[in-house]
C-alpha cells in the first residue's frame, strides 16, 4: 500500500490528462455526484453501467491500468456482505461488490489526477484547520517515514535481524526499530511544524484556500454528469 501511495502521488503530479486539467473543486463536486449515484444504485445493471463509465474515464485519461488494482481491495472486503445478499439473488450479491469497486475506483481516479496539496486545499474549505493541517503534515511525514523505514529494514536485514533461527529476537528488533521510527518521526514532525511557524503559518492553518473561479464549462460538465447518473439510475 505504501508504494502504491507514492506511485499514485507521482502520477497525480507528473501526468497530464483532461482529468488532471479539471480544477479541483468542480472535480470534487463531480466525484460526489458519481459517489451518490454509486450508493443509490440498487441493482446490478445500474452498478455495472456506472463501473463501465469509470473504467472508460480511467482509459480515456490514459491513467495506468494498475490503478484498477486499488479498486480490487474493496472487492475482497465486500465479499462477506455480498454473501449475505446471496439469499436474495446472485445479481444482488454481485451488485454489492460492483458498488464497492466503483466507489474505490472513483476515489483512485480522484487522487491519481489531483496533487495532494490541491486536494487537501479544497478539503480545507470544509474541514477545521487542525484536521486539514494534520492531513497535510501526516501526508508529508508518511513519505519521509517511508524512506526511513526502508533504510532501517535494510540495515536490520544486513545485521541478520530477520534470520529464521532467532524469531523472538527478530520481532524485538523490528519493534524496537518501529519505536525508533516513532521517536524519529516525532522529532521530524516538530521541526516541520517549527519551520512552518517561522514562515508565518500558525493557527489559521498551513493550507491556502484560494478562491476558485468557476467556469461555465465546469457547470455544463457537472450538469451533464448529474443528468447521466440520474439517467442511469432512472432507466436502470
Amino acid at each position, binding site marked *: *500500500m*505504501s*508504494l502504491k501511495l507514492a506511485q499514485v502521488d507521482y502520477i497525480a503530479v507528473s501526468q497530464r490528462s483532461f482529468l488532471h486539467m479539471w480544477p479541483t473543486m468542480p472535480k470534487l463536486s463531480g466525484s460526489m455526484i458519481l*459517489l451518490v449515484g*454509486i*450508493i443509490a*444504485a440498487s441493482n446490478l445493471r445500474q452498478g455495472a453501467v456506472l463501473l463501465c463509465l469509470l473504467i472508460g474515464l480511467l482509459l480515456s485519461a490514459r491513467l495506468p491500468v494498475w490503478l484498477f488494482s*486499488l*479498486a480490487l*481491495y*474493496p472487492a475482497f*472486503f*465486500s*465479499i*462477506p*456482505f455480498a*454473501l*449475505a445478499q*446471496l*439469499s436474495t439473488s446472485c445479481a444482488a450479491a454481485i451488485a*454489492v461488490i460492483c*458498488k*464497492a469497486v466503483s*466507489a*474505490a475506483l472513483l*476515489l*483512485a481516479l*480522484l*487522487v491519481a489526477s489531483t496533487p495532494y496539496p490541491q486536494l487537501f486545499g479544497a478539503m480545507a474549505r470544509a474541514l*477545521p484547520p*487542525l*484536521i486539514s*493541517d*494534520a*492531513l497535510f*503534515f*501526516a*501526508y508529508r*511525514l*508518511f513519505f*519521509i*517515514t517511508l524512506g526511513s*523505514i526502508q533504510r532501517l529494514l535494510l540495515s536490520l536485514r544486513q545485521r541478520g535481524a530477520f534470520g529464521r533461527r532467532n524469531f523472538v529476537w527478530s*520481532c*524485538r528488533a523490528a*519493534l*524496537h526499530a*518501529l*519505536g*525508533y*521510527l*516513532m*521517536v524519529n*518521526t*516525532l522529532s*521530524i*514532525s*516538530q521541526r516541520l*511544524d517549527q519551520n512552518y511557524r517561522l514562515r508565518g503559518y500558525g*493557527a489559521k492553518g498551513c493550507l491556502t484556500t484560494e478562491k476558485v473561479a468557476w467556469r461555465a464549462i465546469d457547470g455544463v460538465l457537472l450538469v451533464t454528469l448529474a443528468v447521466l447518473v440520474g439517467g442511469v439510475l432512472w432507466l436502470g
Partner: protein
Amino acid sequence: MSHIHLPDGVIPTGWWLLGYIAAFVWLSLALRHAEAETTRRKLPFLAAMSALMLLTMSIPLGPLPFHLNLAVLTGIVVGPWLGFVAVLVVNIMLSFLGHGGLTTIGINTLITGLEVVLGWWLYHRLLGAWRLNWRALTATGLALLLSSTLAMSAIGLSTGVLDVGWHEHEGEQHVHHDITAAQPGDAATGANFLGLGSMGAVALILATGVAVEALATWVIISYVQKVRPELLLEESDL
C-alpha cells in the same frame, strides 16, 4: 487490529449516516479541547502518529491475516481527543486508496477511535498504578477486544452478516480468508479455518490479533520509555 476496511455501498445509508453524525459530535468535542494552545502544540505529534499508523497498516505480518494499527499507542501519546482526530486523518487517507470507503469514514473512525479512547483511559487512568509493561499489555488488549466486539456487532446488526472477512498482506497483495458465514443464522455452515468452525476461527483470529498488537505496543512503549519517557506522560504531568 479492529480496523475493518468497510467499503462504500455495503452498509445501509441510515447506518453510515448515523456513524457520521456520531463521529461529528465526538469530533466537535475533540476540536473544542484542541482550541487550547497546549493541544495545538501537539499537532506535530498527531501528524506523526497518523503517518506511523498509515505506515504500520501497510507492513505485512507474515502469514497473520491482519496488520498492526497502533491506535492504542496513539491514544497514549497524543491523548484521547487528538488521538480521535489522528484516526479520522488516517481513515480519510485510507479511503482514497480503497481501504475503507468515503461514506464509511464515520463508522470506521468511531470503531478505531473507541480503541484510542479506551486505551488512553485504561493506560493513564484505570491502570495508572500498575507497572508500565502490564499497563501497556492490558490496556491494549482490553481496548482492542472491546472495539473489535463493537465493530462486529455493528456490522452484524446493520447488514445481517455475522462475521467479517480479515485480510492479510502478502507483499503488496491482499489475500483474504473467507471466514464468513454466508447468511444470518447459518454460521455453522461457514467456511473453516484451521479446522475450526466460523465462530471458532473468528475467535482464534481475534485473540491472535489482540495478542500481537498488545505485545507490539508493549515492546514499543518499553523502547520509548528508555529513550524519550516524557512522550508517555500526559500534558498535566509534564
